[in-house]
């Protein structure tokens, strides 16, 4: 008797298998990879349409669309507190959310390097799926390409996000005005130092965890206060210093920060000290900066602190008139300095 089951296809070997060139060829191997990994984990009604693109429902509540995209090349792929998968979801969601928009959909494009263990890929895809599900934002379309060994570094993920901006919300980096107050949602440098500690094998007794997280819940709570928020930004690559310099230039203003008010976790401060880095320039993946009208600052700060992601929110500075658009800081030591644009490359491949 023939024991071969009809229509049996040997499943992907998620234990010992590796990505090979056939997984990007457009043939059956690719279809199987998509089916058994991506479609399975990301499953939703839009992906199930199974077409080259997904047809999305009309916007019912009005408002304008916001769109953003972000490439992720972080090394290592797995780090304390997260991995490239959830990072690629959070990064793009946050770029949409800091515009004041409610994120609706995500698209994901994968560049896989030949030889990537399928077990790693499965872990990454599962992490993406969980992050998207937790955020309530489905991944509705995607693409996979495979390049030869040595032409990439395991996996690169580009995600695109679409959101809807409610009427009346207009956050922009050019709206900061002298007198405004600068708020920060929590501690600086956790993501960057989690990666660096991993790369440099710094053996901390308690590992530094990346702060990677989706911020749209916190942002919704902030918008609900009705405070006159001029601008929101998530200080990722280049850190807080870069973000504030961008806003200062866009708005044509200066800023004065108070170093003593800027929260930094003890382990992060120690790791920065050890590696000669400044937490002001280290990447964050779950923090935001808000510039708000002075009259509304306390109310907004209270709302941020009431949200779990803003428990350590702080008022860190004010916006000034300054034709040079300098971001300056009163140091904890009692002096004054510029907090300049980042020069060169501090931490390559951080996100």
């Amino acid at each position, binding site marked *: 008797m023939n024991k071969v089951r009809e229509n049996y296809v040997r499943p992907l070997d998620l234990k010992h298998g590796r990505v090979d060139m056939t997984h990007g060829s457009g043939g059956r191997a690719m279809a199987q990879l998509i089916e058994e990994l991506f479609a399975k984990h990301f499953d939703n009604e839009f992906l199930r349409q199974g077409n080259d693109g997904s047809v999305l429902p009309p916007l019912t509540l009005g408002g304008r669309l916001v769109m953003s995209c972000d490439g992720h090349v972080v090394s290592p792929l797995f780090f304390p507190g997260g991995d490239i998968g959830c990072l690629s979801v959070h990064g793009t969601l946050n770029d949409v959310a800091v515009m004041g928009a409610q994120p609706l959909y995500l698209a994901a494009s994968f560049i896989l390097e030949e030889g990537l263990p399928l077990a790693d890929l499965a872990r990454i895809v599962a992490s993406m799926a969980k992050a998207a599900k937790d955020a309530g934002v489905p991944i509705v379309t995607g693409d996979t390409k495979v390049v030869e060994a040595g032409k990439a570094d395991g996996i690169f993920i580009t995600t695109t996000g679409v959101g809807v901006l409610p009427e009346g919300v207009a956050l922009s980096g050019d709206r900061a005005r002298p007198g405004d107050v600068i708020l920060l949602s929590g501690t600086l440098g956790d993501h960057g130092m989690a990666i660096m500690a991993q790369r*440099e094998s710094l053996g901390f007794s308690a590992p530094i965890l990346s702060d990677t997280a989706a911020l749209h819940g916190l942002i919704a709570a902030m918008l609900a206060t009705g405070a006159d928020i001029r601008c929101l930004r998530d200080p990722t690559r280049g850190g807080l210093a870069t973000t504030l310099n961008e806003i200062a230039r866009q708005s044509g203003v200066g800023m004065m920060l108070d170093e*003593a008010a800027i929260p930094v976790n*003890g382990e992060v*401060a*120690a790791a920065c*000290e050890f590696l000669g880095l400044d937490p002001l320039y280290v990447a964050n993946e779950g923090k935001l900066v808000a510039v708000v009208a002075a009259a509304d600052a306390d109310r907004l700060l209270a709302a941020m602190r009431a949200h779990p992601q803003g428990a350590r929110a702080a008022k860190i500075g004010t916006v000034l008139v300054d034709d*040079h658009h*300098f971001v*300056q800081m009163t*140091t*904890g*030591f*009692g*002096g*004054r*300095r*510029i907090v*300049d644009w980042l*020069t*060169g490359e501090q931490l390559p491949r951080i996100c």
Partner: protein
Amino acid sequence: MKYVDEFRDGGLARGLAVAIAAEASPARRYSFMEFCGGHTHAISRYGVGDLLPAHVRMVHGPGCPVCVLPIGRVDMAIALALRHGVILCTYGDCLRVPASDGLSLMKAKAGVGNMRGDVRMVYSSADALKIAQDNPGRQVVFFAIGFETTTPPTAVVIKQAAALGLDNFSVLCCHVLTPSAISNILESPEVRELGTVPLDGFIGPAHVSTVIGSAPYEFFAEEFRKPVVIAGFEPLDVMQAILMLVRQVNEGRAEVENEFARAVTREGNLKAQNLVSEIFELRRAFEWRGLGLVPYSALKIRREYARFDAEVRFPLDYRSVADNKACECGAILRGVKRPQDCKLFGTVCTPENPIGSCMVSSEGACAAHYTYGRYKDTQ
């Protein structure tokens, strides 16, 4: 953070500022040179200058390893990467130093014409040795720069390479010596005769002194009648050292005092010194950017270890290359000019597009002033 915050305490800083203001005589000016780039950086980053009275002025010295590296040495490193096809390992600071023909190691890494240099940034000499062990088929050269602080780790890897019998590892040695540079400044005509650079004392190096000890500075104090206070790199160390220098000047003393007693002894680290003298010997002369040819101011690898000397292993010629004519790095490194006195500062020469070496390293006087202090120029 324990053992760090204590040295950056704003309250203690205000106390020291009051003491300095009270003791510095308003009838005279005080000019102190901080030799080390580490001090320059701390002064700018923490805003130490804002806590000093107007008649106590800090002059930046040449103690920034990247800044004093002459163009010709960087050219040699680039030639190794591009023409000799080696894996060139370097500390990150060196990557952006402008060299001849508009090149830098960073540009060599990105590719020049159809040549692309395999340039790798390392955090320590040990990383370079590891790269050599991992790439037995390639020649690996460590671009060794720095003062006495970074010399012992270079000595260690040369010794290890010898023990391992590695035949694909060598060192392009550019290690320089602090005392020679201080002598050079004190003997320069600007300081000795013309008096254009009034120097009333030195803040002595922190990390360098942990290796060489405080004894080598006794000569300057005695011979040139200049007080030296060795200080740690934390801002309170610097403030305390300034107060000690003011007191020496007021009392007419010229002694070596050690503010950094928690790490520096009179003799220094004998083990490190012995290791260095086992591997290295004095060069007869070495060109410094800013100071020119300074006799017996640098180290080279001893003949016994010559097989690890990149200058012996590869056909390399040192060619002296003049700085850009408008660049004032030389005068700035000697304390004759301030960064903002240079026409190129902040316009043509910025940290993104440095013309001179003082704008490259975060320890360089120009980079420190541009990054942290240039708001003062607008007031």
